[in-house]
């Protein structure tokens, strides 16, 4: 175990809460777009991680190479994500859907797309890790309660705030708008939606576009928090993203965010309160995931199939 004085130290506890939420927000932001495509289209889009990685690079080019400010970088990355995702729909998913391919076929083609995208990134950007310039965000953190108090970096604050904004915004879009209604109809049954006169292909494109926007936001925010942009960053987060999607309930927007934050907190607290917790944080995190699924097989916020939609 750790130093006993740490166990009862309230500042240490709060600090880990903050760091854990920020770590979890990374997973949450990533999982948002993932769960949307999952929920609406019934596709495990494994190219989502590659899209996210490309967006991080687009943001890096805009901010680091061209020297433009963060909001421009964020918008450019989101737009790039939207376009890449729509491109994927046309190249990797629509042809399969029209041919009425096997359920697993889109997942396989997304793996292929992902491999191609990662290889292209390695070719274009070399495999070396890129870093955002130091001027993008103030590297000096904020302190709550003096310099001995709780520390929050600007990147941490940004990612927690933006992940909540995106969650609320996406929830509003799906629930309150006409497009959202159409998206839900397509999610319920593409066939029924078509019979109601909904242009299913158009809705699918819109869904992919939104998913891509979210991947773009994730690329920039995570890039800022970890200061680590490389062709391999998608693979690092993909597994946890999938886990978070399942933990929250497939296709459940709020569930993805809560699942992400929970995973981040569990990992952080494992490291913080166990000796050499870094060795087995993954094991503990996934054990807890497994236990939760045993109790709630449809995920934290998931409902039984018949009661949904």
């Amino acid at each position, binding site marked *: 175990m*750790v*130093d006993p004085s740490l166990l009862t130290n309230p500042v*240490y506890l709060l*600090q*880990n809460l903050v*760091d854990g939420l*920020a770590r979890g927000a*990374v997973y949450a932001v990533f999982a948002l777009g993932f769960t949307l495509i999952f*929920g*609406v289209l*019934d596709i*495990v889009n494994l190219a989502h991680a590659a899209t996210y990685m490309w967006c991080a690079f687009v943001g890096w080019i805009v901010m680091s190479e061209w020297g433009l400010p963060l909001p421009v970088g964020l918008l450019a990355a989101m737009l790039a994500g939207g376009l890449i995702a729509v491109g994927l729909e046309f190249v990797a998913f629509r042809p399969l859907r029209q041919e009425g391919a096997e*359920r*697993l076929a889109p997942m396989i083609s997304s793996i292929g797309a992902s491999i191609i995208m990662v290889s292209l990134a*390695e070719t274009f950007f*070399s*495999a*070396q*890790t890129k*870093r955002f310039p*130091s001027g993008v965000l103030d*590297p000096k953190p904020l302190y709550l309660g003096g310099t001995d108090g709780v520390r929050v*970096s600007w990147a941490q604050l940004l990612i927690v705030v933006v992940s909540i904004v995106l969650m609320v915004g996406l*929830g509003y879009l*799906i*629930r309150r708008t006409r497009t959202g209604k159409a*998206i*839900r109809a397509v*999610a*319920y049954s593409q066939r029924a939606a078509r019979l109601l006169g909904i242009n299913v292909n158009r809705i699918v494109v819109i869904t992919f576009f939104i998913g891509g926007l979210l991947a773009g936001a994730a690329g920039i925010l995570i890039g800022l*928090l*970890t*200061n*680590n942009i*490389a062709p*391999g960053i998608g693979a*690092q987060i*993909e*597994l946890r993203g*999938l*886990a978070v*999607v*399942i933990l929250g309930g*497939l*296709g*459940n*927007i709020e569930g993805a965010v809560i699942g992400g934050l929970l995973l981040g907190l569990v990992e*952080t607290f494992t*490291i*913080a309160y166990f000796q*050499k*917790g*870094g*060795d087995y944080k*993954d094991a503990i995190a996934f054990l807890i995931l497994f236990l939760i699924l045993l109790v709630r097989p*449809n995920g934290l*916020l998931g*409902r039984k199939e018949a009661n*949904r*939609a």
Partner: protein
Amino acid sequence: MQLRRGSLTLNLSVVLALVAMTLLAACGDPTATTAPAATTAVATTAASATTAAAATTAASAATTAASATTAAAGATTAATAGGKLSGEIKVAALLTLTGDNSVYGSSQKNALELAIGEINDNKFLGGATIKLVVLDDKGDKQEGISVMTKALEQEKVSAVLGPTLSATAFAADPLAQKAGIPVLGMSNTANGITEMGNFVFRNSLPESGVIPGVIDAVKAKSSPKKAAVLYEVTNEFTKSAYDVFKASLEKNGIQISGTESYNKGDTDFRTQLNKLKAGGPDILVVSGLIGEAIPIVQQAREVGITQPIVGGNGFNSPNIYKQAKDAAEGIVVGSAWFLGSPNPKSKAFVDAYKKKYNADPDQFSAQAYDAAYLMATALKTAGSTDAKAIRDALAGIKDFDGVLGKFSFDANRNPVHPPVVLTVKGGKFDVYG
């Protein structure tokens, strides 16, 4: 809100299977590390027998050039060393050219191409030239095994330089040992590399040859009382460096106030650093590779660790201060070589490298450059492409005048030359002390 879906159960099981598969793949890494450890143990016993034999061969070869022992080098060699070589001699370079650790591999590739170009242009081997076969090991064990197999079986090389990472070397070098082809590691610093067999060499000082000197220097300068340690647990090199750090700290009477670890690919180290900070350390010791080292250094400063950071060999790249910027100030690292070294060989190398690549060479390029010349010298001495002859000639190298200074191989084919202790000051490496 919940979006309606098709057959949920099928999808869930597919995803769970995927998660399980990926987890297994991820776990494969740590479990695989035990395998090389086991093979190393076996190899050590085997090697201790062969090393003794090899050492005597080398020694006697050096003293009595024409004695009976040189017969082992083959009858073709005869007395005209260097004269018989002709045509193109293939030497493979297994380098990490993709992934985070490509920082090291690309430095090595530049330096090797520079050195081989010089060797061929200056007719160092008389009528023969060296053809460098560069293969990308991707910093991956499986890929390392595959390109080593390619080098040995398809390219039929006479010798191998590399691989870049110790972990890859532990996986791939046994193949060369088995085939009886000499391997010269240029950046493998983990313990136990040359124990893999009598055909395995390295010219990179092992951690045990550098770290104790670094800790001694830090102790002499700032006499720290407590040290916090952070290391990557999923890599042989960072683990073995951690062991050496731990032993050196204990030997110097520096108390270890906390030890934390992380996995390859982790990006958020704030929790570990925050915990280490609570122990009130006077120095932070980090055994990690460059990909993680940069965010660690930045986040250490962010959580308020202002104390000097002592790094392992992974910190030995100008990228540490180029990318970590101000956060890198005060880093202390032991090095086999230093850009500002007054050694004339080193100066000439720096000039040639700058002229060709318009960039400063780092320690890895210096070691790679010397490795190319060591191999060429061995080829020249052996006067043949017979693998055993090259091996014996390499093992016999003493007081080679190179970029790294006066260089010799010891009886275990490990390098002997003086290290330097560096610190980051004013945005670049400077001599510490």
